[in-house]
């Protein structure tokens, strides 16, 4: 708690405006805590776009390759069976399964990566016992140190946007 300053707000707009103002003043925003995904807060906090989409594409490519390769291997190489005179490697007929497996790999792989990012522990536990952001409170956590201005000016901004400082 000594390392952080915590401000509490009643709605997303005050939080968003305060976060922008605090960040513009040169403070480091450690994190914000909100009951729902606030639209536009990522820009206010300066978060980089998530790389999950690229991860998803990687897993999708893997799924497609595995599915096509496996179907080819099993129906054309390992034990070819003549079914209605179709070619051993009937790629068009392999497409539905290839598609489903692609989706399966992409979905599960992305979810797995999401959990892996925090080693299956989505978030660090609370900074403070009264700090519960799953109901109706919005919090901003500011890292102390390295900033040019005194912490009092951050507290001022919090007050300016109808927020209050959470006492340790």
């Amino acid at each position: 708690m000594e390392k952080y300053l915590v401000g509490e707000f009643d709605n997303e707009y005050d939080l968003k405006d305060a976060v922008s103002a605090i960040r513009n003043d040169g403070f480091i925003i450690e994190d914000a805590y909100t009951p729902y995904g606030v639209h536009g807060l990522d820009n206010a906090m300066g978060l980089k776009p998530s790389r999950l989409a690229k991860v998803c594409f990687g897993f999708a490519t893997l799924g497609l390759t595995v599915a096509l390769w496996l179907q080819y291997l099993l129906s054309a190489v390992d034990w070819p069976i003549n079914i209605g005179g179709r070619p051993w490697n009937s790629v068009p007929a392999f497409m539905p399964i290839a598609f489903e497996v692609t989706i399966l790999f992409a979905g599960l792989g992305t979810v797995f990566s999401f959990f892996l990012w925090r080693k299956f522990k989505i978030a660090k536990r609370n900074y403070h016992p009264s700090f519960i952001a799953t109901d109706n409170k919005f919090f901003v956590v500011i890292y102390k140190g390295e900033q040019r201005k005194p912490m009092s000016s951050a507290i001022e901004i919090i007050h300016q946007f109808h927020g209050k400082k959470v006492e340790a």
Partner: protein
Amino acid sequence: MDNVVNSIRDPQIFGNKSLTDVTEDVCNVMDRKPKKLWWIGIILSLSALLLGIVAVSYQIATGIGVWGLNKTVGWAFDITNFVFWVGIGHAGTLISAILFLFRQKWRTSINRSAEAMTIFAVICAGIFPIIHMGRPWFGFWALPYPNFRGPLWVNFRSPLAWDVFAISTYLIISATFWYIGMIPDFATVRDRAKNKMKKFIFGILSVGWNGSFKVWHRYEALYGILAGLATPLVVSVHTVVSFDFATSAIPGWHTTTFPPYFVAGAVFSGFAMVLSLMIIARKTLGLEEYITINHIENMTKVIIVTGGIVTLSYATEFFIAWYSGNGYEQFVFLNRALGPFSWAYWIMVGCNLITPQFFWFRKIRRNVLLVFILTIFVNIGMWFERFVIIVTSLHRDFLPSAWSTYSPTLVEISTLIGSFGLFFTLFLLFIKFFPMIAIGEVKSVLNYRGRGGK
């Protein structure tokens, strides 16, 4: 905060709720002792389920000879039920994924329970092909795993093998999507739970969620990706189901219009089922301010559109049968409309063509009781659509000497009733033990008319 209110738009949620009100209203449903109506519902559905279990056990012990199938009609009740339940599932994914991608904010109050409905419907659907195998304990043979029979692999060119992959992928991805969507709400339930046991269970389910925005940021990316994956998936699933018929050489099945026809029909029947369930749920749980009359009206509009596509498909089928000049094809369609199963055909046409037309009237769209009755008719009509497609195409085939008829036995009817029992049991347990409205998502649309409305 400035109070800009757009007076043209209705609010998404009625009753001028605060953030805490949403938490309390939704969580209270889980805390309260269930009403009498819930107990009546669960007893009825458990009895139906029991009947189904008895019927299926008898069928497995005796063999599928206890069904009314014969060598001409080799597929009937069982596959009808399978296609019916898979179709029901489609509305859930449409609401949760496609409406999400289209930024339709009204989905927030209904998406959670619609997704739950999807999963339960797919579970019900999955039972039918498995019991149709006759020896369900060998059901895993449908999967390509290294075995001591050669290894002899599954036939990847067969639509039935495609089905295995499509349905299981659909079940896994929908369940994942559902769970991911519930994590923030599990945390809300955990944080306000007084009961230690509940805190512990929801603590595990919420994997340490505490509302950190850095996590929200990734979470929203993940949610968008899953929605993007579920959208083509849902279209592919019913397409593959329609391939079971369309890739065969049976007149009445062998048509290229089947995939879009089946997908539209699935969404049509699914929305009818969502509406029936939501109307019951909002009434019995007192959630009228969350699942508002506007939600009901929006869903009926989807029914008009998909009902229109279904109507067009019926007309197209007849036109193509005539235009193809193929005698067998023409016979099948005339036989459908005028033959021994014409009663089923006209029930289907009556329910699926006429019912949605009532929804053109705003007065009817906003009359909850009428909407409920009409959606039941849509459900009946869509069940008969699958029955008509499957049985009428088979029962009079190429050789008149092989012509036959079909009527379901008691075992088959009991199995159908049992699947409804399973579906409603799961749904009633879900609305009792899980947050049935997406708390976090509803909170984000409370300011829909103010600065939140985009």
